[in-house]
């Protein structure tokens, strides 16, 4: 067995997990407040194309990341207006967001398609920790966004479970009518969390073009990661730390071809079939974790996907 390649694959899987995890954490925030946003893929594309342009023009990765995030947040506001204020069908609105995001981002990005970006995130080496076999390269020699993502997951866990504001968010997702009676601003909370979701999705897209594949192409950049992130939220039963774990699993599925193609024992599997892996894994995960009965037990927000209308309380 080729150990070096396997360790490299594991390390690459951590990087590949970052955009999946960021997008899924964002979706988790929106869903916890009761709004299902299927538009993750569209928000990621908008974040990616804006970040690429800013990164290309300014050379600053961090500025590009922030702009990508803000673009995603702004874009997600469309969904908030449609679903929270105009009480549109959240599923159809989310789909529309993907279609519009795909078209708009390709239109904006036409002139930069295929152009390389020569900046990249510099990995942080954690001193002697980085020299530990296997664990070192996998955990202690990664770029800053890896650690930022872990920190974001920790902050969200604390926010939702230990703060008063987080409790209000969960109340809005479980029973908006009750929350409204208690004086919680249902619509405002939903707007904020849909847009926080957009912010993280935009950053996920930005990280893809800045750190993972340093160039922009509409069909190659996201390649369905936004949809995988949606499945991941269910798989993680709406718990941020499990999102990290699941994202690593999907990241590994996305990078496993490097490893399998170099192995003697592995059968000669065509590249196209290896590319199917993450999608097959998503279906398998959904069938097991996404079943109706289990969903209720593992803590899906009760009011998920339902518009709140005070007149019909």
């Amino acid at each position, binding site marked *: 067995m080729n150990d070096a390649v396997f360790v490299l694959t594991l390390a690459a899987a951590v990087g590949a997990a970052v955009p999946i995890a960021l997008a899924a954490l964002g979706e988790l925030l929106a869903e916890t407040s009761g709004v299902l946003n299927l538009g993750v893929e569209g928000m990621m594309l908008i974040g990616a194309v804006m970040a690429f342009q800013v990164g290309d023009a300014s050379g600053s990765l961090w500025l590009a990341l922030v702009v990508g995030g803000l673009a995603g947040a702004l874009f997600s506001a469309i969904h908030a207006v449609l679903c929270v204020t105009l009480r549109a069908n959240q599923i159809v609105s989310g*789909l529309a967001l993907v279609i*519009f995001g795909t078209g708009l981002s390709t239109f904006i990005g*036409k002139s930069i398609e295929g152009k390389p970006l020569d900046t990249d995130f510099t990995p942080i080496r954690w001193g002697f920790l980085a020299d530990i076999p296997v664990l070192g390269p996998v955990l202690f020699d990664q770029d800053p966004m890896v650690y930022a993502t872990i920190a974001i997951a920790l902050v969200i866990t604390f926010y939702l479970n230990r703060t008063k504001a987080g409790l209000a968010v969960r109340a809005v997702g479980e029973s908006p009518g009750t929350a409204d009676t208690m004086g919680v601003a249902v619509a405002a909370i939903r707007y904020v969390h849909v847009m926080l979701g957009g912010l993280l999705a935009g950053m996920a897209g930005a990280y893809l073009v800045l750190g993972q594949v340093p160039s922009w192409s509409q069909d190659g950049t996201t390649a369905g990661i936004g949809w995988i992130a949606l499945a991941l939220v269910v798989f993680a039963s709406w718990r941020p730390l499990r999102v990290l774990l699941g994202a690593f699993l999907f990241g590994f599925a996305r990078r496993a071809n490097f490893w399998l193609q170099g192995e003697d024992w592995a059968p000669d599997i065509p590249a*196209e079939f290896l590319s199917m892996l993450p999608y097959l894994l998503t279906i398998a995960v959904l069938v097991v974790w996404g079943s109706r009965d289990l969903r209720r037990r593992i803590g899906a927000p009760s009011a998920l996907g339902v518009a709140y209308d005070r007149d019909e309380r």
Partner: protein
Amino acid sequence: MIRIRLERRLERHWWQTVLTPTLSVLAAFAAGAIFLAIKGFDPITVYRELFKASFTSTYGITDSLTIAVPLILTGLAAAVVFRMNLFNIGAEGQLYLGAIFGSWAGLALTDGLPTILGVAVVLIAGAVGGALWAAPAAVFKAYFGTSEIISTLMLTFIALYLMRYLIFGSNSYWRDPESANFPQGKKIPTSARFELFSDTRLHWGLAFAIAIALLIWVLIRFTSLGFDMNVVGSSDSAARYAGIPVRRTVIIALLISGALGGLAGATEVAGRAYALDPNGLELGLGFTGIVVAALARYNPFAIILVATFLGGLRNAGVALQGLPGDRVPVEVSLMLQGAILLFAIGGEIFSHHRLSISRANPAVVT
């Protein structure tokens, strides 16, 4: 203090159903104009050329109708299940499978058959392929409650790689052995091809797609299956109480939807590509079907009209490439489609709600 709120309309007028989609199209064009202007194009010129390219000349109109053929079918694929609150968004993948099955049948079974039979074989095989591809999502949905939204989409990605493998990744039965450097699909015999209308690119698939739209209308309005589908769509528990087999209805509906997506792929093979051609099929026709269905409010006849309109929009995207000067990206039509859909969804609420603006006394708490 001025209060603006949404109030339920007490009466609905017939013109509101026409007004909302029309206004959303206009609003989307206005929004699109802003983006075009930002990118340095003159919106009025672009829109004028767009309209001219698709809807004024004979070739423009027939080309628009040619693209409308698969769009009618993918639009129906979405409409049949969306109206039941079942969201098969994988018509794209079902279309690929329809093309794979259809081109196989065309290559293997139709040599020497009369054209009408040969085309029928291709279409039936395509429908079977599409339905098979929807089957896992249907069964998982009916028995485990697995979200069909995500599963049908994941199956689309798998279908995409499968199709690429058959042409680019292997010496499969579908691949033309003569095409070593630029892999292409093997052409199906003329007996498996739709006939063309005189010297245009438009083929008899248009008549077929319209007939299918009629069939779906009959299915929804006049059959007991259509009735069951309506009841399951409005309420699971009511359906169960009425003794309607919910699982079976869900599965059948998703299989019909998949078959329609497959038919779209088969008509593309029999009418336009004459082979399994990944480059010519990866056009997002399945995804556009969702826009078609939503704009047509899931009405089969409206789908024919909307598909023609969006077909023209897409056709224009390509035609605009031929204009002198700076090139308008083809994607302008995709952007417009998304914007139209967003405005249509936003406008939907105004067909049963109205804005009421009033001066409210802040002292009165409602």
